[in-house]
């Protein structure tokens, strides 16, 4: 097979679930931005609510799956301790730490990525809940709507940091 199982899982984690989350964020944000009583009819608000709720819950599900898969599949391979004399290219954490010019990718990059990523599903779930329950009120109440938009943006920020660092890590020390 042209992809090893490790490469496949890493791809599912980053390019499938992670990228899916980032795409769904855009749609959710745009839909929520448009839920305003002055802009759309009451029927339009209900249509926006249904669509935004569906996309928001999908986004939250993608965020959860991304961090769970990432933590319990590739991360285990990433941090595995190599036996003496092993080929370090198969042990990304040890490989990075063995190269002083790359060590920061672990001590800063991976250390931040593995923790900050877990903020995204908490924030995305809160945003999805607000949208699905309060969208009609958000049409009138800018505080609630802005809170939803802010939570979405913060979830995106956490995921974007994790995704960007993940891309750098994969480039320097790919999981084979």
């Amino acid at each position: 097979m042209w992809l090893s199982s490790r490469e496949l899982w890493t791809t599912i984690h980053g390019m499938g679930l992670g990228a899916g989350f980032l795409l769904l964020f855009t749609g959710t944000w745009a839909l929520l931005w448009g839920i305003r009583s002055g802009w759309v009819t009451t029927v339009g608000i209900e249509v926006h609510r249904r669509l935004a709720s569906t996309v928001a819950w999908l986004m939250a599900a993608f965020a959860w799956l991304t961090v769970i898969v990432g933590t319990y599949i590739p991360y285990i391979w990433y941090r595995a301790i190599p036996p003496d004399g092993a080929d370090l290219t198969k042990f990304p954490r040890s490989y990075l730490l063995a190269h002083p010019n790359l060590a920061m990718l672990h001590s800063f990059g991976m250390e931040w990525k593995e923790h900050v990523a877990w903020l995204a599903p908490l924030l995305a779930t809160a945003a999805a809940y607000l949208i699905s329950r309060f969208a009609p009120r958000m049409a009138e109440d800018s505080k609630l709507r802005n809170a939803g938009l802010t939570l979405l943006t913060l979830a995106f920020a956490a995921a974007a940091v994790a995704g960007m660092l993940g891309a750098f890590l994969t480039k320097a020390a790919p999981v084979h």
Partner: protein
Amino acid sequence: MSSTENALTNGSAAAATLASGIGCLTMGVLTTLTEAVASVGRLLNFYNPTGNLSGKTLTTVLVWLISWAIFRARWKEKEVDFGKVFTLSLVLIGLGFLGTFPPFFDLIAG
């Protein structure tokens, strides 16, 4: 929009928002604590292949869900000052981000 949806109080929205802040803060505090105090790191090592990340994340999720349930039970019928709750939530989320930032937890850990 239905009258039921219009009649919703903002208490459960505030509960969800504040719980997300508490969850983020928990992750930040646990990340910094595991770096600063070795025994906490060992205590949170629930699953050896992932190390203490398993304990940090599971504890965070539990604290988040429990705090959400508690605040929702207290506020679901109430109209609360959402602006204040949201501001507090943003502070907690900010502290959560800070706690996961390696230069910060390395500084605290010495």
